[in-house]
């Protein structure tokens, strides 16, 4: 992602130098403060694409699963910062906070989460950049968890806030998909900091950046809260 930022800066300065012709194709798309006609068009189309993907989403279609031999080793780290800067959350004091349209908003310790039914999967993690890896995760199915805490599942969104300042949100239909889990384990061991300890979302029906790591807060509501990359222009639904 660092490289991306460099390209953006380089391009922006060149666009300024070369004038309107090179600046035209969405150069302001990363600058919400100065939207132009292209931005307006792209945002409209992205909203349209959210709707089309919601229509296309079939709650019964499962993401393909793989055999243990196909797991990518070593696993690939990816974030908007360096691996060494991954937030370290103390598992002993960790508590998942709940908010929004939820009946029982008591927070959850790791031990309490581990006491719930666990579901494992070996699935493909597809990055918005085009590469993909195969990994093994297990944890609490999000649909089970939402029902357990008395969440209003007629709400539109489930949103997440993370220890590193990252945030994202997903549609309720995808949240209830059987393969969507609050992962606690990665490759048969508790998650490590770079891979989202202590709790991350694993949702194989969406692109990688829709799998927030080190989740501190979970909320259910009808208010759209966007996301870290989504607010910069990546498509919100980003289904697979």
């Amino acid at each position, binding site marked *: 992602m660092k490289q991306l930022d460099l390209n*953006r800066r380089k391009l922006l300065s060149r666009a300024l130098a070369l004038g309107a012709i090179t600046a035209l194709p*969405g150069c302001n*798309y990363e600058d919400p403060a100065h939207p132009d006609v292209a931005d307006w068009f*792209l945002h409209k189309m*992205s909203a349209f694409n959210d709707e089309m993907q919601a229509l296309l989403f079939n709650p019964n279609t499962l*993401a393909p699963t793989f055999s243990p031999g196909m797991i990518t080793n070593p696993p690939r780290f990816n974030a908007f910062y360096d691996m060494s800067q991954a937030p370290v959350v103390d598992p002993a004091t960790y508590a998942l906070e709940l908010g929004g349209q939820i009946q029982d908003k008591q927070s959850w310790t790791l031990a309490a989460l581990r006491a719930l039914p666990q579901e494992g999967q070996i699935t493909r993690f597809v990055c918005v950049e*085009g590469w993909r890896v195969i990994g093994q995760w297990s944890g609490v199915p999000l649909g089970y968890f939402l029902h357990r805490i008395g969440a209003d599942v007629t709400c539109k969104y489930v949103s997440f806030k993370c220890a590193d300042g990252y945030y994202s949100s997903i549609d309720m239909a995808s949240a209830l998909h059987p393969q969507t889990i609050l992962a606690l384990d990665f490759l048969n061991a508790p998650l490590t900091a770079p891979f989202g300890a202590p709790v991350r979302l694993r949702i194989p*029906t969406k692109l990688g950046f829709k799998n927030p790591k080190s989740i501190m807060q979970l909320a259910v509501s009808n208010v759209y809260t966007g996301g870290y990359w989504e607010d910069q222009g990546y*498509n919100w639904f980003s289904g*697979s």
Partner: protein
Amino acid sequence: MARDGSTQARPRPIHPWPLRLMHWLNALAIVMMIGSGWQIYNAAPLFNFSIPETLTIGAWLGAGIAWHLAFLWLLLANGLAYLIWGFASGHFKQKLWPILPGQVMREFIAALRFKLPHQKGVYNAVQKLLYVGVIFAGLVVVISGLGIWKPVQLWFFTDLCGGYYIARYVHFFAMASIVAFMAVHILLVLMVPRVLPPMITGGEMPEGQS
């Protein structure tokens, strides 16, 4: 000829208006799709090269994807309309078929000698082959594209292309063949520039030819 605005039989255009409309909409969609696709390619290049940033559309990956997924719908709707219209109106059967290998060879050699005859309203065999080829490449690019965009929901497209990993290569090579087509296509138009105005205004079919 009825030039006085009466409803007497008007001369038939070389290119009927639906064809012209769809052709230019497609040209727009293709340019936008390829330019933004190159931006996306640069985020995780399949080969040992990147596309020069000046040739890409969208200043960064997010903008590239946004353009790509925006114009996808124009390409898809327009392409479907063209296929339906082409079969239903008899256009494909009349203008793009049959393609005879012997004729292709003869006319290809003639083209290399800059002696390719061009009859108004009739595509020569080389043209026919190129057009049918690019229609096929268009199908492949759309199917593989949908396969990498939606490997879960549209898994049958992904599988058809040999899985997610291979589908990316299929998508790339389909794009590359469309680019190659465009280079030849535009070169041919530059060599015989009088074929261009009828693709814009429609032109008039010579008497006695259908």
